[in-house]
């Protein structure tokens, strides 16, 4: 026990004097969590709160185009920037290149007449199907083309573009429906649709209630912090490979290891000490990053991290995540011949395992062929366990199914390490 205590003390001293290693283990992950959460939160707000600039060229002089503009404005997603009527398409495109806006919508000069014609055509069809005769069918056969053009900047991602597309279609649908309704009402009653009825029919959409599924019955909507902080904490834990992995290689290749091999103590004790020391480091990392999420995020205009109700469960999950991370780092350190190998392989492999584990793209969004590989990444099980606590409001019992594979993977890594030590005659 005295030898172990002395070795842990030595490892802690070496660690505390490695300023770059400390910066990598604590500074970088904190920065990463802050940056990623800020970005994700901005994306969330872009879609849900902020308005996207939309250049609007209304070349129509009719009433329906004004209704269309009002409908788009009502969506609340766009900051409308109306451009002079005479401005050509190329001028709009130039403004988009200048990043004045990422979207531009053109309502052509015959927009109102086109919509009106479509409405009359649909009305006529409807009346015919009711066995009634339409008042005016002369223009009903004239047009069936899309009346609007949307220019978009290529930097816009497809998911966001689809969201814009859906919103604009919804506005267009609203305008068209209103016209059809007015035409139908006029054809049957020979008078204008009352405004009150129009509002009743068109503006009274049935709401959709969104409820997050949780194990504890809470209805807290998960925010960007709930998603990002646990994910990047795991990333930080596994990134100890840079300090620990290269530290083991440094020790192996330095004279100190030669001396250790001549002393009456097994090198396994040194590895046990390193595991305990760095397990402590990973726990401090988790505590630090969670604390930042809880207390610092609100001051940075980021949503505060809500810690799970089961704090003991959070401790246990963090402990096993840390143990698995440390096991992996030791294994890399034992097999690597040089510090460059340990750093290069360690860093790249963690990024790959993080990607496979669902830290960068959600696991459910990955192709079916990846579903088995995902399960081989320890980071996946760490994330599953953390999400079970942070997002689903679960307890330790609920996430046990994710901890078991994590333990199995850690044990396999440990066995591989012992095999490597024997193969290299280090023990």
């Amino acid at each position: 026990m005295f030898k172990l205590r002395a070795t842990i003390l030595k490892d802690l001293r070496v660690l505390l004097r490695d300023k770059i290693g400390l910066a990598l283990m604590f500074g970088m992950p904190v920065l990463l969590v802050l940056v990623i959460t800020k970005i994700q939160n901005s994306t969330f707000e872009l879609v849900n709160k902020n308005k996207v600039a939309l250049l609007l060229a209304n070349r129509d002089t009719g009433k329906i185009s004004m209704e269309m503009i009002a409908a788009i404005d009502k969506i609340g997603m766009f900051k409308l920037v109306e451009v002079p009527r005479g401005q050509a398409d190329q001028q709009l495109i130039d403004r988009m290149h200048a990043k004045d806006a990422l979207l531009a919508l053109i309502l052509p000069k015959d927009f109102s007449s086109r919509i009106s014609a479509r409405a009359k055509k649909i009305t006529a069809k409807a009346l015919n199907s009711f066995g009634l005769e339409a008042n005016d069918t002369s223009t009903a056969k004239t047009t069936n083309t899309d009346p609007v053009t949307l220019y978009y900047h290529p930097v816009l991602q497809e998911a966001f573009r689809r969201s814009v597309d859906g919103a604009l279609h919804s506005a267009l649908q609203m305008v068209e429906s209103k016209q059809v309704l007015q035409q139908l009402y006029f054809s049957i009653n020979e008078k204008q649709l009352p405004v009150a009825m129009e509002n009743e029919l068109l503006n009274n959409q049935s709401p959709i209630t969104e409820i997050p599924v949780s194990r504890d019955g809470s209805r807290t909507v998960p925010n960007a912090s709930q998603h990002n902080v646990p994910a990047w904490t795991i990333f930080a834990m596994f990134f100890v490979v840079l300090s620990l992995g290269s530290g083991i290689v440094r020790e192996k290749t330095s004279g100190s290891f030669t001396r250790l091999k001549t002393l009456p103590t097994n090198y396994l004790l040194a590895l046990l000490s390193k595991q305990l020391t760095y397990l402590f480091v990973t726990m401090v990392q988790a505590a630090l990053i969670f604390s930042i999420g809880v207390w610092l995020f609100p001051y940075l205009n980021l949503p505060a991290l809500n810690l799970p109700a089961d704090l003991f469960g959070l401790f246990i999950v963090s402990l096993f995540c840390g143990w698995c991370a440390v096991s992996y780092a030791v294994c890399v350190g034992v097999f690597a011949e040089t510090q460059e190998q340990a750093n290069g392989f360690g860093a790249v492999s963690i990024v790959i395992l993080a990607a496979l584990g669902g830290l960068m793209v959600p696991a459910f969004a990955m192709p079916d062929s990846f579903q088995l590989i995902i399960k081989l990444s320890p980071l996946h099980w760490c994330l599953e366990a953390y999400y079970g606590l942070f997002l689903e409001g679960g307890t330790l019992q609920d996430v046990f199914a994710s901890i078991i594979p994590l333990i199995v993977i850690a044990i396999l890594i440990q066995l591989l390490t012992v095999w490597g030590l024997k193969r290299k005659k280090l023990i």
Partner: protein
Amino acid sequence: MNNSAVNIENLGFTYPGQSTELFSGLNLTIPAGSRFGLFGPNGAGKTTLMNLMTGLLSFEQGNILLAGNEMKKKDRSVNKLFGFVPQDLSFYQELTPVENLQFFGAWSGLTTHEIKQRTDELLQLLGLNDVRNKPVEKFSGGMKRRVNLAIGVIHQPGILFLDEPTVGVDVQTRHAIIHYLKELNKKGTTLIYTSHQLSEAEDLCDTIALIDEGKIIVHDDLNHLLAAYGQNGLEGLFLNLTGKHYRD
């Protein structure tokens, strides 16, 4: 009572992947309490022999006894009988001399009290007391060599292996180290030393062995050998027995 510090019997060793045996049926006895020097040209096998005696390499054939105790692959208890001062600086440069001695002392099997006592004693003896709490990485080459030596002797071993212990140091440090080693030997520690510094070796060693191509050419009291071969110094004896041609 065992009178030999090291007893090598019929030792056979081949490096993995090599077909030629480096040592075959090698025998060597180093008397307890002696100041033994092992010399030879580059590639002669002296470092390999030192590594076999300290357990850094394992042998397939024969036996090595340290103070009568057999060296075994999986039993490290014999390791507490000797100390080792490698040619490379073998400690943690980011730690202070005190912190290094605390760690290596614990690994050598000492108690907290013993470590403290020996640390104070050694730092004083080797002139490191003023810098005891400063990181070793900021030390001069000579100071680092003294730290390297202090760690090797912290547990007061009966046998001390020294591989080029004074390489790259100034005259003052060399003198201090050699003086300390002689004092250590007077207290009963067997010194097993290897170096290319033959004048230093002549000053330190009372018994020597010359090794070449994996074989012990001569092994005797230094003065007897010098007289027997009609040489004034170790360098002349060395060249006389191993030749003047390059070996690497």
